[in-house]
């Protein structure tokens, strides 16, 4: 049976992270399972954990009063579900819903933030990786905003 550290090492997000750091992360981790349709995160609720998706897909959604829930992005195995745990006020800004039966590793945010405070090398490495993730999601959102495919857009 693979350890949590081994499972984390399979995610492209953690590629190159030294095993000592993976072990530290794994100390805050546990395996979780969601059935298709389960709500994983809810906008406005406390961001106490985040997830490394191992199997299945997750939809990030935002509820619009006129249009109902809109899917902003779907995440696939290996990807990270949740970044709001990283910075105050530690509150989710989107909903997340399992599209399939999902398996993931949940990482306890309080536990991990405490380890980052104690071990700044670990904290710096994690912040660099999350900054890259936030940048790529911001860029994707910008591209969605300019509505690339509307008639005459090219």
């Amino acid at each position, binding site marked *: 049976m693979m350890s949590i550290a081994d499972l984390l090492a399979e995610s*492209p997000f953690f590629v190159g992270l030294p095993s000592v750091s993976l072990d530290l992360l794994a100390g805050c981790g546990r395996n979780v399972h969601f059935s298709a349709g389960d709500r994983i995160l809810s906008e406005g609720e406390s961001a106490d954990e985040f997830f490394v998706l191992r199997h299945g*897909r997750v*939809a990030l*959604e935002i509820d619009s009063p006129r*249009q*109902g*829930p*809109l*899917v*902003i*992005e*779907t995440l*696939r195995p*290996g*990807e990270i579900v949740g970044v709001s745990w990283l910075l105050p006020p530690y509150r989710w800004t989107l909903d997340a*819903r399992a*599209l399939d039966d999902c398996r993931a590793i949940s990482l306890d945010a309080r536990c991990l933030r405490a380890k980052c405070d104690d071990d700044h090398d670990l904290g710096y490495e994690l912040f660099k990786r999350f900054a890259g993730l936030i940048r*790529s999601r911001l*860029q*994707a959102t910008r*591209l*969605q905003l*300019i*509505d*690339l*495919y*509307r*008639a*005459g*857009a*090219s």
Partner: protein
Amino acid sequence: MSQVTGPPASPAPMRPVMHRVVRRRQDLDDTVTLWLEPIAEAVGLAAAGQFNMLWAFGIGEAPISLAGSDDGLLVHTVRAVGAVTIALCSASEGTEIGVRGPFGTGWGQAEAEGRDVVVVAGGLGLAPVRPLVMDILSRRDRFGRTSLLVGARSPDTLLYHDELTRLAADGSIEVDITVDTAPPSWPGHVGVVTNLINGAADLSPEAAAFVCGPEVMMRFTARALIDQGLAPEAIAVSLERNMHCAIGHCGHCQLGSTFICKHGPVLPWPRVEPLIAVRER
């Protein structure tokens, strides 16, 4: 990848050759596919990636990429965005349309034989890559792992939906579709098309890439492919510009010293990148 020029254009490239619409399919609210049959003579056989100039008589002509050839019929997918394309989209079966062409460069997929292939299409950019994909499917054993990555605005604006569904089910090539926004009922991916590239962790650095879509999408797609290890020269993109003469005389489609109608529309990324980096005023 160096692009390949298709068969030479007609000896009288400015003279439209009469064709008749024999089939019309409404693909999207503003997009139609036309099957054109030659009335007396035929235009030359186009290579995948080339385009024809289609005449709506009394209104004007517009450059439209070949979306396929079907038992001697030209297949063109047209989006209604201006007077000419609105007229073309309104053409019913039996309408006579003038055709000049074929013009420009093809995808040059022969150079990709023996390698993995990734085709990335956004929006109406799926039409020019359709004959490329059909050609790969017809000679499937000559190409390595082949992926078709498709981006669209929303599920209801996804071009060739039924054909993509069949292709995905067939399994000869990998088909991955994403839309920018979707209701929860959409079973596929949501996000920009570059996410599909970033998610393709096992993309071979030796792969050949063919990209067609809005210019911004192609810019970010090319960068994402390069970030995944592809050589810039292994990426071919198809540019859309305001072609008028289509034979490199009038300069309407000129970018620097490049006439998109003649030297393109398919060009290697290293040649395109500096051209589209110049901001339009």
